């Protein structure tokens, strides 16, 4: 412990340590399950950003079925983030879809209530928390 203590002090004094206090107040979280399918040459998946601003909570939504589609910015309805639950509505050429699921500091998981299968065709969304800027999309598995 005596050896560990100086290390902890150093970490606390570094920019990372100083930033961590600020990070907790940042108000932005980004989630993604976008990957690249090299067999088809396509980007697949969804990415969601949640911005808690002063007036409201906004959600950035964009999916990829080959390439990224049009992004959407949604002002969340009151109660859209309640506890760990999340729901919001996505505009789509075939009509609005409602996403329901859960959100944590690690992931967003959910589905579309209209039975839509999503851009990966699996019927479920499982987006991991990601750091920005995005550096690379992983190969789809």
């Amino acid at each position, binding site marked *: 412990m005596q050896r560990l203590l100086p290390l902890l002090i150093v970490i606390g004094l570094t920019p990372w340590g100083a*930033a961590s206090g*600020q*990070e*907790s*107040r*940042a*108000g*932005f*979280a980004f989630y993604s399950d976008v990957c*690249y*399918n*090299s*067999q*088809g*040459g*396509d*980007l697949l998946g969804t990415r969601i950003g949640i911005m808690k601003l*002063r007036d*409201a909570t906004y959600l950035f939504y964009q*999916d990829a*079925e*080959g*390439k990224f589609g*049009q992004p*959407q*910015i*949604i*002002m*969340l*309805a*009151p*109660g*859209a*983030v*309640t*506890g760990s639950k999340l*729901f*919001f*509505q996505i505009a*789509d*050429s*075939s*009509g*609005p*879809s409602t996403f*329901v699921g859960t959100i944590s*500091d690690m992931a967003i998981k959910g589905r579309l*209530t209209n*039975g*839509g*299968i999503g*851009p990966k*065709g699996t*019927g479920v969304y499982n987006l991991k928390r990601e750091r*920005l800027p995005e550096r*690379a*999309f*992983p190969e*789809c*598995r």
Partner: protein
Amino acid sequence: MADPYQTYQDLIWGRWNPLDDPNGDSAMPGDDSAKDQGAAGLNPSALPPADASTLDPQTQPGPNFQDQSAAPFDPSSIPPVTVGILGPLPPDSNSPQSQTQPPFGPSQLPPTNVGILGRINLPGIAARDQGAASNAANSPAAAGQYYLPGVGVTYLDPSFADKLGKLILAAQADNIPLRFRYAYRDQAEQDQLKHDLTAITPADKSLHSTGNAVDVHISAMTPAMLSKLVSDAAAAGISWGGNFSTPDRPHFYVDPGGNRSQQIDAFSRAVRALKDQIPDY
């Protein structure tokens, strides 16, 4: 004075947890009911519908914005999408051949020719000038210019387009809301897709670059719809990327075999020749 770098870090590297709130209220400001609903069941019906003006992302320039705290949705306000089978474009009016032919009209459409869907009030393109494009490129590859719903003007291998037309008609008969996301991508765009955004796999030679693949908008489809679409595709002679070892479910394609790199080069030359012949819309 705030350190801008630190502010940037806050924004970009933030570790904010939506569930962490110093006030213990993870919902929107002013939502006093949120705390009480923490363990309550989710009620999607409470969500006000989106503004109908944002319903078609394909037609919206720039990011869409929805204020889901207001604006009732009226489904009747969605522009109707009507389908029609279109054939080849009228010949180039500047070419000697076209001057000997009557004006182009729907009655000229070959009944068994390419069946590509168009939308009312949009340019009825669905066109091809296969021979000219092929000859101009001095290559056996052929390229055609087509209109696909959800994509707009794109370029396809005419033999693939023929099959795609059959798939579109079959989907229409099965009441499958078929829209496309992407079709032709030239090699530069394909490379950019990988090089800028991925750094794991080497650049590949996609069938999108030979005009032999499309990506279907499957997100809103049900599993039953997709299953039916896949069987319709098989009947039309089109393969499905969902059968890849790593599934690519929006991807529908025909693999002509042979040397992919040569095919991409030949098809890109044919597309360039076609673009020289047909003005932009």
